């Protein structure tokens, strides 16, 4: 059994299905094909600069797949869906890498992380992305348009590897139900962790709350990726710990 990191970028346009939704569908296709289990998807914001053409948001979407299947089978399922569902004006890219290859090559892992971090503040090129992918055991491919999405797809891999970047796509589920419009509810940290796929509840500064802490939750619960874990950020409002608002999470 291997853990694969899979990342896509630049698949959407105005009024078309978003990259996050397409990533979710790719993940579901892999599960439906009985290739293995997938993790939640992380959304990674990339650099906004006039020299970087982007169709919608310039964010990459990444998830893991635990699978005994070969890379080519995983890629073929992902590519088939990307080609079918990406917007006509999009420039989709796909990156796939096996984690064990990066564990065996710390330098390759470090280079990918550096590329990801730089892609948040510098303009990168396709050539740089392809050269790095070749050096770092990453299968990198483009599937339409200019193919510039390979840059973001590779950067998304690097950012996921940092363990410190991105928001979790969608809402946290409690007992299997998405928290789209949660009525105000008081729950302990322990009970939230037991009812969700979260690893921890943290304050805005990233400090972990004790299990017995009581939370006042409402609306949509959004998680972020921190210390290689999916965590629920909360903030103190008087005596209450409340789930973080959209504006508090915008820099993740």
């Amino acid at each position, binding site marked *: 059994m291997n853990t694969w990191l899979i990342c896509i970028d630049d698949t959407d346009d105005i009024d078309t299905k978003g990259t*996050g939704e397409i990533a979710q569908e790719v993940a579901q296709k892999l599960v439906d094909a009985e290739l293995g289990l997938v993790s939640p998807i992380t959304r990674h914001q990339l650099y*906004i*600069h006039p020299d970087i053409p982007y169709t*919608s*948001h310039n*964010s990459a979407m990444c998830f893991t797949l635990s699978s005994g299947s070969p890379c080519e089978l995983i890629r073929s399922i992902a590519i088939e869906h990307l080609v079918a569902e990406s917007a006509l004006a999009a420039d989709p890219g796909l990156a796939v890498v096996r984690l064990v290859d990066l564990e065996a090559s710390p330098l390759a892992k470090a280079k990918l992380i550096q590329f990801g971090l730089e892609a948040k503040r510098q303009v990168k090129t396709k050539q740089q992305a392809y050269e790095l992918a070749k050096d770092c055991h990453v299968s990198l491919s483009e599937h339409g348009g200019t193919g510039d999405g390979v840059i973001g797809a590779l950067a998304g891999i690097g950012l996921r590897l940092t363990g410190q970047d991105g928001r979790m*796509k*969608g*809402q946290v589920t409690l007992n299997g139900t998405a928290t789209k419009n949660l009525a105000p509810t008081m729950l302990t940290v322990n009970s939230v962790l037991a009812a969700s796929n979260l690893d921890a509840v943290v304050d805005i500064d990233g400090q972990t709350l004790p299990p017995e802490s009581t939370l006042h939750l409402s609306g949509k619960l959004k998680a972020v990726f921190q210390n290689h874990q999916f965590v629920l950020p909360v903030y103190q409002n008087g005596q209450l710990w409340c789930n973080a608002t959209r*504006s508090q999470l915008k820099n993740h």
Partner: protein
Amino acid sequence: MKRTTPAIETWFELRGEHWVFKFSKHHSNPPRMAANACPYFMQDDEDEMVDDELISCLNCVYRRWNSQSFECVKLALLSHQRDSEA
């Protein structure tokens, strides 16, 4: 709040072919006021929304971020259509 046809120039300025928001993306009131006055507001994918108030240009599918603020691609599209018809 009643939504009316916007005085576009109150909020946006035309730079080349781009309708650029005049105010910082870090201040929430101007984008909320602009969106409340805009008949084209359409909420973005939930994962892309960053303002706590739903009706805000910061949550609109037609905003495209730039380094300082954002531009409105819907206004650009409408300008282009008007130019084509003229």
